[in-house]
């Protein structure tokens, strides 16, 4: 098991390097730091000195890949590629445009992101599976038919409307919870409740319908017929056999998403003013803070790879046929 995990982590390295090269290409080769400086400074204030100053503040005034002027090993290390891209592997992300340390900011903002995303994820998973199983149990009846109709309709609504609707109804009209904001400690519950609930509702249509399809596919298999032929009741068939086996396809989609709980919902956090990583990313995009966007791309791909690894490990837990090799 441990040997397997280590090998998988080694496999992940080329992918991370690839991501690094792509972001480096996007941020420094397609557009040179000069272009970025001109864009950020605005048309009026562009002077060669201002650009040089901007670049020096951010450390973009070095050569891209190879510093011929520097002595010894510095030829390679005193470059933009080393300073801005390779240092990310050591979780050294440098500073944002407002001068704060990005790595520290990311650590601080993880908490609020998790506080919203984890309850939403767990409650959502429970509700989706419950409803999907119910629809599968009542398959080919009016309950199932209208359930699917509601799911398809719910899927067709943009998540932004769920957020706006939730904020309007629950926070503005009924004054049950604050519209937006966040605070630490036990007070956080008031602020977390609405975003988490909206997250659950917004994902209902798509997930429930998908899980129902997984359940229906299992139900039509031979071993289920055998179980019925043995005289097992329908509920035993569903919970003991169908639910367990349908967990495999469900896990494929779900486990890979777990690491992304750290990033949280981009839109949700920004709408509800939650100081998590999602709103951090959106603010960085809006203020065109390239350093932060670059760091978040790196973190995101790291989490994705972690998700793939988790998925493989979880397979062995639910499906004894799968061997790690």
């Amino acid at each position, binding site marked *: 098991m441990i040997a397997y995990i280590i090998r998988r982590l080694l496999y992940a390295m*080329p*992918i991370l390097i*690839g*991501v690094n090269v*792509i*972001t480096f290409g*996007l*941020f420094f080769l*397609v*557009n040179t730091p000069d*272009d*970025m400086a*001109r*864009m950020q400074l605005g048309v009026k204030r562009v002077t060669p000195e201002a650009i040089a100053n901007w670049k020096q503040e951010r450390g973009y005034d070095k050569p891209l890949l190879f510093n011929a002027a520097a002595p010894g090993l510095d030829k390679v290390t005193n470059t933009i590629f080393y300073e801005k891209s390779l240092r990310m592997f050591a979780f050294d992300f440098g500073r944002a445009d407002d001068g704060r340390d990005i790595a520290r900011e990311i650590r601080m903002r993880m908490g609020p992101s998790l506080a919203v995303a984890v309850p939403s994820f767990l409650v959502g998973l429970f509700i989706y599976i419950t409803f999907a199983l119910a629809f599968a149990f009542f*398959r*080919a*009846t009016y309950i*199932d*038919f209208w359930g*699917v*109709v509601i799911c*398809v*309709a719910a*899927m*067709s*609504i*943009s*998540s*932004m*409307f769920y957020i*706006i609707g939730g*904020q*309007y109804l629950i926070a*503005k009209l009924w004054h049950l919870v604050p519209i937006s904001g966040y605070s630490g400690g036990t007070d956080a519950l008031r602020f977390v409740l609405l975003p988490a609930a909206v997250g659950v509702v917004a994902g209902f249509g798509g997930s429930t319908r998908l899980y*129902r*399809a997984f359940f*229906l*596919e299992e*139900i*039509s298999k031979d071993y289920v017929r055998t179980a019925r032929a043995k005289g097992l009741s329908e509920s035993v068939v569903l919970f003991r056999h169908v639910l367990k086996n349908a967990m495999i396809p469900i896990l494929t989609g779900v486990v890979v998403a777990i690491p*992304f709980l750290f*990033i949280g919902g*981009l*839109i949700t956090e*920004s709408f509800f003013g939650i100081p998590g990583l999602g709103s951090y*990313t*959106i603010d960085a*995009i*809006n203020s*065109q803070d*390239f350093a932060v*966007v*670059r760091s*978040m*791309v790196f973190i*995101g*791909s790291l989490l*994705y*790879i972690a998700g793939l690894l988790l998925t493989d490990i979880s397979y062995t837990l639910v499906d004894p046929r799968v061997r790690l090799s």
Partner: protein
Amino acid sequence: MPFQTVILWTDWLIYLLVAVVVVTVVYVRGREHLLAPWRRVGHSASGMVGLTVLLMFVAVGLLDSLHYRPRLPSSEAASKVVYAAELKSALDAALEPLRSRREKTYSAPLASELFAKEMIERADGSQTRDYPRLKFGGAQLKDPGTESAASIARATVGGAAAGAVAWLFIALFVAAALAQSQRQHIHLAWGALWRGETPAPWRAVLLTILAIFLAGGAAVALAVNYHVLGTDKVGQDVFYLTLKSIRTALVIGTLTTLVMLPFALALGIAAGYFGGWVDDAIQYLYTTLNSIPSVLLIAAAVLMMQVYIDTRPELFPTAAQRADLRLLFLCIILGVTSWTGLCRLLRGEALKLKELEYIQAAHAFGVRHHRVISRHILPNVMHIVLISVVMEFSGLVLAEAVLSYVGVGVDPSMNSFGSMINNARLEMAREPMVWWSLAAAFVFMVTLVLAANLFADAVRDAFDPRVRTSALPLRSMKAPLPAKAGGA
């Protein structure tokens, strides 16, 4: 000429797409084995209702894709022809009154007065604080307070009646065509149509058209004198903005897949068919691209594109061309981030297909690789391509709204559902609330996405061999359903 035609980049691609669809239709018509799954789509009521609604949207989108620059009226007679810098489309020409009748600021749907009180100067010179009359909305009324309700009701009923009459002609035409094809009298065909006994779900389709015509007729009749969906912050008609947004949504939903298809097809099939280091390289490529969260990759790419556009203004003569190029680039970026899923599916399918006997036989006969791929592999993966293209559409339309909100979507000067939501969101805090732009974007977007979802489901049910085999024994187990069970 009174105008100069302009073909934008996305217009070219839209025409290409229309040509592809027409060629496909002509090609499929003569081939029974290709026609059979489409016939199954044609027999699904929900699918055809979805298609009907989609076609209405497509018609608006196509009208909005015929661009031109009107000639400016010049004082000297035809000495020098000058065309306006502003780009217009056929839709703009049709909606010219809606486009040009700008109010000062917000007004509610069908209102005759502005939304907020202002200082008004009376005829006698004294000032009062009241709701000023609109310049255009309800301008024909003398006293809006008493007359507007009756005037609105008249226009609604009149418009709906005109819509109903137009619909009746279509319904009669359908019945006549049915009667013709089945060689029976028209009133028999008419009866069978309304009892739902036609092989294709004509009753559902006609009812959908009726609903659209009633709403559309009423909207057109009301639009003559009112702002049907109100006006936005700078006084633009929201109904007009909504109609203009349709093209953006359609372009994003369709061109993205058009852009990504060549990559996904070439790489997916190559990986599965050739195997070995080709497979390894392609797998590495799509795992790497996949591992970057798509929103972030899109954001990074769009930020970079913005830098490129902003630092090279000389490349873009008009604002519309700049916005259009940005839209096209957004499609490409979305395509780059979304081809991986289809690529993986195609790789798996090609891997499976190349072991089949007929491909082995082709190899034994010495058929070259490119012939095997184009004659044997490609036709056998087309159903996967088709299913994923139609399934992708609604997701892309929804993604556009989110991206515009994040600030990496379409150009701010371009109308889109995303920018409508984004602008309207800021007005949520107003008391009383400005709800109409949000409601308009909501209704049109949900209709479009729901129609696309219904159609996509019908296409998948008809083309996916797996769905058909697993769904059949289930339905026979219990009492038969009155309608489609919704598929898997």
